């Protein structure tokens, strides 16, 4: 009703800017603590286990089904132009360039991002982070940074698993069920997929998504209101914001990588 009043607009802008600055500072502190996280690699290792291992099942199963579907759809479309043998290439390129990094990042946000947000939010609600500060232990260094770096490391690995399982799925449908020649399937893939331009760019994408999703999950948890509603709202926001961020970044990265 009065949102257009200059003082209210100014207040809202100032609040947003302060939030933005706060988030940016947290991001820089997470980067800054990268070295110390690596020195105590045990903490990062535990988180990689927690985030990666528990996401593995959903990533592998999704990858398999995406591979199945790619095999089916790709075969029927390619067949129309008489180039069914190119199925291997089509499946591999779609997975390595796009679907692997993007879908695994979306699943990672839902599976691991939410648990990160809820964990940090509940630690905050239980005064555990305050207690840590009073013990002269920086929660950003001890709790957030290892989780952040674990997420950044885990994301490309999960994307690789997703793509690999997806290719197998495409093989099962294309070669075993629909009768594409096995040699053509693998041969086309081998000659058509470039290590740097395709696989390399896919890895860069998933690294960027790993940074984005882990950071958003931690930020939402760290600034969640320390109440049950606050934590639940933060968890929801993690999924929404991280997913949109992944899709937006994917567009930007694709435009940059494949248009030059």
């Amino acid at each position, binding site marked *: 009703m009065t949102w257009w009043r200059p003082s209210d607009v100014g207040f809202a802008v100032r609040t947003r800017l302060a939030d933005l600055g706060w988030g940016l500072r947290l991001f820089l502190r997470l980067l800054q603590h990268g070295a110390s996280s690596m020195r105590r690699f045990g903490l990062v290792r535990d988180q990689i286990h927690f985030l990666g291992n528990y996401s593995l099942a959903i990533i592998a199963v999704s990858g398999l089904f995406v591979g199945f579907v790619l095999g089916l759809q790709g075969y029927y479309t390619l067949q129309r132009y008489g180039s069914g043998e190119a199925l291997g290439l089509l499946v591999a390129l779609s997975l390595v360039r796009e679907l692997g990094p993007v879908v695994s990042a979306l699943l990672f946000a839902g599976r691991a991002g939410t648990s990160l947000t809820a964990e940090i939010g509940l630690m905050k609600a239980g*005064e*555990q982070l*305050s207690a840590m500060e*009073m*013990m002269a*232990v*920086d929660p950003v260094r001890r709790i957030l940074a290892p989780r952040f770096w674990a997420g950044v490391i885990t994301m490309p690995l999960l994307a690789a698993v997703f793509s690999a399982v997806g290719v197998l799925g495409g093989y099962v449908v294309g070669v075993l069920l629909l009768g594409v020649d096995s040699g053509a399937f693998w041969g086309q893939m081998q000659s058509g997929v470039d290590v740097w331009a395709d696989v390399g760019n896919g890895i860069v994408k998933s690294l960027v998504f790993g940074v984005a999703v882990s950071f958003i999950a931690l930020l939402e948890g760290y600034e969640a209101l320390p109440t049950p509603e606050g934590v639940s709202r933060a968890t929801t926001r993690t999924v929404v914001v991280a997913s949109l961020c992944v899709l937006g970044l994917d567009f930007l990265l694709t435009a940059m990588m494949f248009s030059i």
Partner: protein
Amino acid sequence: MFGYDTRRVLDGVSLTVPRGKVTAVMGASGGGKTTLLRLIGGQIRPLAGDVLMDGKSVPALDQAGLYAMRRRMGMLFQFGALFTDLSVFDNVAFPLREHTQLPEVMIRDIVLMKLDAVGLRGARDLMPAAISGGMARRVALARAIALDPELIMYDEPFAGLDPISLGTAAQLIRRLNDSLGLTSIVVSHDLEETFHIADHVVILANGKVAAQGTPDALRHSDDPLVHQFVNALPDGPVHFHHPGPSVEQDFGVHGGGAA
């Protein structure tokens, strides 16, 4: 002086905590007692005024200085604030592992000694979810004294405890203070236990120091506010009713007649 947003919580509070003694800070709930502890611990900064620990200003410290100072303080949170993903043993070992390079065998000995001091050596392998509120607070106490601090702050150590745990907690605070040569600040509104163990009592009311002195002196004080507090009277200088519109305005009654 300190305020959250627009509300001033503490205003013109000046008090001294003597070394080696148990100082109790009492007052009604929401009266700024916990805020006072957070100011001392440097978690929040005052809008005006200063907090000195050992002659050094806490609000003026940078993060490194603040963390160095906090290593000399221990704080016990109201509900313990144990790390729920770590066992009792690992909770107490946490500050030792973070701040020292001690070998694991020595950490084990120190942790068991600290747990023994609070009577929970046998509970070392339990998870925080599996112990009672009173036990959780004792574990948190063992964790707070793990690095042998000089100052220890208790935030409502008696809230929500059964009579036995309550007595145990009070005795523990007194005993640790004397045997470890600590300085203790106890924030509480439990009159009986607090007066029993404190050397010095500060009563906060309306964001100010209303009275301070030894428990005996306060018990016999004729200040109306202290009298109300010590005798737990519902109405007096501290009002039963939260400030708001008058009864007449809210219920539409005029001069005793029906509306």
